[in-house]
């Protein structure tokens, strides 16, 4: 009897009760993170600059505004045709940033993938990408706007930074998952680096790359809306900014919001379908 109870190690509390929870490091960290979140949130609310805010009347007013926006959407400062054109501009900015971003990202991701490149190049690319990601897109666009002149060039170049940074991360992870055996086999036959990339790496990851690119396109659409509003890059975002900031025309804001919502939902449905088709299938294999 004695021997058995000695050999099995049971953690007990001070009062002799058996401890049910193991209290691993992960659990401790989770608990402290939650406490930290709580403390920081409470601090945040005490630190806010409330200005001239009258919270009750503001809420009532917002509800009224939302009612006008969503129940009486209308166009007053521009026509349907122009609305389509502006949506087209925003979509166009998103397409350009995504396509150019994807092309650049493929090359950078090949350099960043640890199985295809050497350690130094991979590290350098990763650090550059992390830096590009840390600066908010709107700052890139505004900085390019002074340097390159305002216009679609500044908007696309500014948006490129984030697209590239996001896609390099996704692409290089996909490249790293390519079967090491295939690469080794090709290397043994004396294939060059470029040959390996073209005939083994790209074909086997192509569907992944495509789905990631489309996911990014979805994000880039809302970024393009934001750039229109905050950096004057044109498109539907700029019209939204004018309608709410200059004309105070809530019905028009409502119309624009509906237009954006519609496109965003279509894009989301498409990307979920793509994701289910490619990601689910490849997960099963």
């Amino acid at each position, binding site marked *: 009897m004695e021997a058995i109870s000695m050999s099995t190690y049971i953690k007990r509390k001070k009062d002799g009760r058996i401890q049910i929870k193991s209290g691993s490091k*992960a659990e401790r*960290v*989770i608990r402290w*993170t939650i406490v930290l*979140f*709580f403390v*920081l*949130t409470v601090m945040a609310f005490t*630190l*806010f600059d*409330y*200005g*001239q*805010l009258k*919270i009750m009347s*503001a809420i009532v*007013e*917002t509800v009224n*505004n*939302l009612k006008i926006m969503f129940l009486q959407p209308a166009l007053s400062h521009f026509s349907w045709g122009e609305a389509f*054109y502006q949506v*087209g*501009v925003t979509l*166009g*900015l998103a397409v*350009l940033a995504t*396509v150019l971003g994807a092309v650049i990202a493929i090359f950078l991701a090949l350099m960043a993938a640890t199985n295809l490149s050497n350690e130094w190049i991979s590290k350098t690319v990763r650090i550059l990408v*992390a*830096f590009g990601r*840390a*600066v908010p*897109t709107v*700052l890139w666009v505004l*900085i*390019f706007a*002074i*340097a*390159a002149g305002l216009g*679609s*060039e500044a908007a*696309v170049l500014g948006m490129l930074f984030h697209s590239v940074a996001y896609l390099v991360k996704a692409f290089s992870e996909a490249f790293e998952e390519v079967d090491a055996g295939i690469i080794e086999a090709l290397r043994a036959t004396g294939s060059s680096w470029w040959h390996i990339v073209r005939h083994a790496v790209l074909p086997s990851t192509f569907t992944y790359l495509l789905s990631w690119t489309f996911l990014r396109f979805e994000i880039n659409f*809302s970024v393009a*809306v*934001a750039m229109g*509003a*905050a950096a004057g890059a*044109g498109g539907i*975002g700029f019209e939204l*900014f004018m309608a*709410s*900031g200059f004309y*105070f025309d*809530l019905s028009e*804001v409502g119309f*624009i*919001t509906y237009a*954006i*919502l519609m496109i*965003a939902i279509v894009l*989301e449905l498409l990307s979920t379908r793509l994701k289910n088709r490619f990601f689910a299938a490849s997960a099963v294999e």
Partner: protein
Amino acid sequence: MNEQIMRKRSWSATIFLIIIIVITYLSAYITNFNFFQGMATVPAAIGWIVSNLFITQESLEQLPAILTQLTETIFMSIAATTTAAVVSIFLGLMGSKTTKVNGFLSGLARLIASASRNIPVVAWALILLLSFGQNSVTGYLALFVGTVGFLTRAFIESIDEASQSSVEALTATGATYFQIVSKAVVPQSLPQMISWILFMIETNIRSATLVGILTGTGIGYIFDLYYKTMDYNTVALITCSIVIAVIIIELMSNSIRKVIL
């Protein structure tokens, strides 16, 4: 793989490539984007950045003011994310397949999530600005609404993923809904959820800059101010401080994530 399939594949790849090129060309036409001009401006832009965006002694004097605004922005994004997370847990529980109460509530939760996620944060900021005016609460609410949408979707996925078998097991023992949720669902998906919250805090600090430019609060406001008065040295300092803050927060959340996941 025989020759015919190979040929068919390369054929469809070519068509795909052509479609992409046509779409890109159309976009360039609509947006008036000139690829070569765009590429040509890059060296000039980099030259401009190097010669104008550097931090001087004078701009360093603004540092205390910048840091106050930066902390306000960081606190704003943290508060928006955590309060949104609390709401999202409930919406996520309602929307998830394994823990939904009934079909109506589940559909409602998904609808709320979809609408608030797909209307860009910018639109929320502009709408709220009209009645809330220029203060932190406007920025906070705009971030809050966008975050609820994103986190609800993420939570639904992590609840679905984590808890199928354990929910079934607990249901078989006759546990109540509340017991199932608090003993099985939440503990199992908590690490995933915290990881998403951390990710969202990172994202929100960047969006907070954008929202700040529109609503006149925090670091975005102060950036806009110096940008418009063409005080580019201070602009450089502000950009640097944002970059450092974002990288520090990213490193912190990565180290938390490494332990819990």
